[in-house]
């Protein structure tokens, strides 16, 4: 790592453990994560709270899962909460809006790039 990331955004220990597992393919993994989630974030931002609670639930679940694995904790927590509420059909704009999610994701990517890429 070139610098220690912001611990609010990224969990260093998870990232280190992952680096041990992936070895030389750590960059490839991070590229895959960033590419995958960039698409998914775009998709989720375009979904309607009124009619697509179920779709939002699934997408948030997926985003949360990947992010947890990488150690992107702040973003993962946000997606987790959105997933929980959307599953019950109770997600509102207070808990979930495209701007917030985009912001958090961008922050996470930025930290990752600073650390590894």
């Amino acid at each position: 790592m070139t610098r220690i990331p912001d611990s609010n955004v990224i969990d260093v220990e998870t990232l280190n453990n992952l680096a041990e597992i992936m070895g030389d393919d750590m960059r490839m993994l991070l590229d895959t994560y960033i590419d995958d989630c960039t698409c998914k974030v775009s998709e989720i931002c375009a979904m309607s709270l009124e009619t697509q609670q179920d779709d939002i639930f699934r997408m948030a679940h997926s985003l949360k899962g990947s992010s947890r694995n990488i150690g992107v904790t702040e973003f993962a927590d946000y997606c987790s909460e959105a997933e929980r509420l959307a599953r019950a059909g109770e997600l509102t704009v207070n808990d979930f809006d495209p701007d917030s999610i985009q912001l958090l994701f961008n922050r996470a990517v930025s930290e990752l790039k600073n650390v590894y890429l």
Partner: protein
Amino acid sequence: MKLLIADDNNTERLILSRVLENLGHEVTQAENGLVAVEKFNEFKPDLVFLDVMMPEMDGYQVAAQIKHHKDKSWFPIIFLTSLTEASDLAKCIDVGGDDFVSKPINKIIIRAKLDAFERLINLYNTVAEQQKEIKVHNDHLVQEQEAAKKVFNNVAHRGCLDSDYIYYHLSAMSIFNGDLLLAVVLPTGALRVMMGDFTGHGLPAAIGALPTSEIFYGMSKKGFSLEDLIKETNTRLYNILPRGIFCCCVIADINPSDKQIKFWSAGAPDAYLIDKEKEDVTLLHSSHLALGILSPKVFKAKLQSYPFTVNHKLITATDGIIESTDKNDKMFGEKRMLDYINQNICSENICDGLLEEVEEYIGEAGQDDDLSLLEVSFPDTVESTQLTKSTEQNKTRGTADLEFSLKLRGQSLNEFDPIPLFLQTILECNELLPHRTRIFTVLTELYNNALDHGVLGLDSALKSSSNGFAEYYQQRADGLTLLTNDFVKVSVDHQPIKNGGKLIFIIADSGKGFDVEGIMKRGSQVYSGRGLPLLLQLCTSVDYLDGGTKVKAVYEWDENDIPD
């Protein structure tokens, strides 16, 4: 191991894949449910990791499809899930999953679970292999049993059990549990029956029946006495049966001319001697250890004799009847059996009725059908020609022209019966086979006269009373043990004549002789049962010489004149 990972999340799939490869496993990936099923069929993994939420087909559906694949032996499915609700986790197991791991994955937990499942897979494969082996062995066993049954049926055949004066029950099940029923007509015209019960069940029990039945038919055909048969059977079984296997049995000779039954029971339940006229049942107890237990050196067979007329019947059963139980495990018992016989004493066929009674008693308790039962009435329709319908194809003239003799002295008179030896030698001339019964009768009559009346000096008038038989045979047995210098010499001279032959029997004994002329004048009813008239009927001539201590009987036969 070969592992399949199905997860639509690229990141997660990549990480898990790398963790598993680092542990040394071979990994295939699927990005949705449909691909998962395809890859499963193609790759045939040893274990499958399934994400629950996938597009096209979710994890539950995939599990349901692949779990019972007919071409794949058992394999574990581990669900990958970040769902935490108990109901969600339980559903993983319900659809056929064997375990679940929560996301994000922990490589230590993954490794531990893989190790555990690998042990399980090995265990399963071992069991499957052993099951195959067991099936092969089982198939062999069944084949061997079938072969054994065929041999058994050919050797231990029923003899004359289907005669009019015999009722019996013997099932395939009871045969294979060691029960045996044999019946044969002796050359004398007497009936010999045997009921045996070998210890144990199945093949080990049934196999003892083979030598037993060979000896029974072989020796009876040659005219061996009941004592000799019993001794030989015990010797053979003693030598060949393993420890703990023996034969409980009842054997009897029923002689219609003597109107007498000679009975021997070893380890068997009581047999029943019925007198229909007096409406009386005598219990005949076992008085010896079962066959195959005592060494031949110490084995003795002491027969019991009783009168047996048209009014008599013998019933014998193996312990299956008495030991049949009802649904409360209560036995049928000896008392019930005796009561039934007493109540039906004059019935023509007690056997069938008794079996129905037992079956009703057992009721729904179900039965092993280990019931063997024999009921013998007076054999007045004995077919003494049975034995002449032999399968011997090679007709040889063998001993058509011979002369031989045998002199038995002292205790050999007690210990050896020469009749079967003589008979066998004479009948090597196969053309004499139809004459077997007559020759046997002549030989036996002459020899017994020489031994009983000549050497032992017994009075056959004793045999005419009902207790007399027992007394006569007791005196005979006692007298035989005291012999030292006495002898009986038997000579046989077989000469061919045109179209047949002439058998000359000369029997000499060391007795005092008798008043030949006097007896002849009185018409001689002196001798046992049949007496001289029978000999004169069967032989061309009978002459007493040397003061009655020697007899010469001539039997002429013609090949064109077959006795019926």
